């Protein structure tokens, strides 16, 4: 009898290796969007990710924090299929499909979006042509008709207003001549246009003054719905004052070494990362 109980307990411990809380109960009920299992990845032969496990459900906001070089940007790059990164082990499924088999454009159609830490300047490609190609590629994939020029421009104006991106995008090349703040607002503008199911914000706060940070965070919050999710990657807890996470993960040396409630971010602000190592 004793042995039987012991056996049950052990099984239970294996299934729920993250301590249960009311938050976790809620999470188990929400639809699973992203499931990362034992993910290893390297860039130019150097191993950066060393066994990442992470599950993100619909309606959730996860923060991933960690010191420089811990692998935060590598994780986001791998999720969107940057060819410079090589996955050497593990699996990633998105809405039940094998994400690692998909091309970057297929991942976008599936609903993944990365707000780049360093948005690329593309001289000679206008923002309008870029966004029209992106939106219409997505619509074609869904079997919807391409937007007319009028419909498209209306949609653009609407989404520009959301992030206060008050500029004529017709005459401007992608990110060219954009200030640091404009580039980040432009990323969130693109997110608003594409309405992803999972948005990954890679250090979206870096280089932003407090006003720009508020605008960007407001935009992200307005885009939040019960059926989408956000992963916020950041160094600084400051951003999390504006975008409230449900869970905070600490990434260190290619592994998630701690997962906790939002208060963990405050603890990190006070104590830094050293106490966790």
């Amino acid at each position, binding site marked *: 009898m004793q042995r039987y109980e012991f056996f049950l307990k052990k099984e239970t411990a294996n299934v729920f290796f993250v301590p249960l809380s009311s938050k976790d109960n809620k999470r188990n009920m929400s639809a699973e969007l992203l499931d990362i299992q034992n993910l290893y990845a390297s860039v130019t032969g150097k191993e950066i990710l060393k066994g990442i496990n992470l599950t993100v459900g619909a309606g959730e906001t996860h923060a991933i924090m960690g010191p420089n070089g811990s692998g935060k940007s590598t994780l986001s790059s791998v999720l*969107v299929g940057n060819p410079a990164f090589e996955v050497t082990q593990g699996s990633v499924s998105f809405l039940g499909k094998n994400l690692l088999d998909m091309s970057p454009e297929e991942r976008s159609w599936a609903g993944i979006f990365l707000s780049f830490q360093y948005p*690329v300047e*593309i001289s*000679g490609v206008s923002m309008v042509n870029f966004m029209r*190609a992106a939106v219409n590629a997505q619509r074609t994939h869904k079997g919807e008709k391409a937007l007319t020029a009028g419909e498209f421009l209306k949609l653009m104006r609407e989404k520009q207003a959301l992030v206060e991106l008050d500029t004529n995008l017709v005459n401007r090349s992608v990110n060219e001549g954009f200030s640091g703040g404009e580039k980040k607002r432009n990323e969130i503008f693109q997110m608003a246009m*594409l309405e992803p199911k999972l948005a990954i914000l890679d250090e979206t706060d870096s280089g932003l003054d407090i006003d720009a940070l508020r605008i960007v965070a407001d935009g992200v919050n307005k885009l939040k719905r019960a059926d989408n999710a956000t992963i916020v990657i950041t160094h600084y807890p400051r951003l999390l004052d504006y975008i409230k996470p449900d869970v905070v993960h600490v990434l260190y040396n290619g592994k998630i070494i701690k997962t906790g409630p939002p208060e963990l971010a405050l603890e990190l602000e006070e104590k830094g990362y050293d106490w966790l190592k």
Partner: protein
Amino acid sequence: MKSNPQIVQLAKNERTTLCFQPKDTALDYHIILEQNAGLDLYFLQDRTAQTHFQIDLNGEDAELNIYGLATAEGTQKIENHILINHNAPKCKSYQLFKYLLSDEAVGVFDGKIVVQEGAQKTVAEQNNRNLLDGDACRIHSKPQLEIYADDVKCSHGMATGQLDEAAMFYLRSRGIPEAEAKKMLKTAFTQDILDKINSASLQIGVAIQP
């Protein structure tokens, strides 16, 4: 090689635009600019072609602008030899030649600017930009500058690259299919020259055909 060039002479204060079309696959020209003459020269090349140009800026304040776009694919070869002689003071020459090559295409840009002794206050700029889509296409670029005067402002530059991987990834990450993303970046590369050509034809009504 240069046998019998066609000679074009621009008299004092004369201004002209010459726009060479893709069908002009063999060109041999000697162009002379007298005082304060101005010439805008446009090249649009999309098939195997070979051109030889010698342009002499013989009078003060003469001004020359060259805009060229060469696109080649398959086993096409586009070869341009352009010699610009600054023979008089205070002349200006500007040159931008772009090559967009794919497959096993070959491009040759052989550009030379000679600033003769006494051609003081010369302003000369020569740019050659090349975009190679693929590992088998080749560009032979030979930008040359020979200066025999001491009060001049001259520069030349050549840059050859492949499609920007970061830009490709950025476009694809927004759902734009690879082939379309490639096309967008190629169009972007050629856009400034095409804009120039378009606006020039608008201004003069019809492009002057040699």
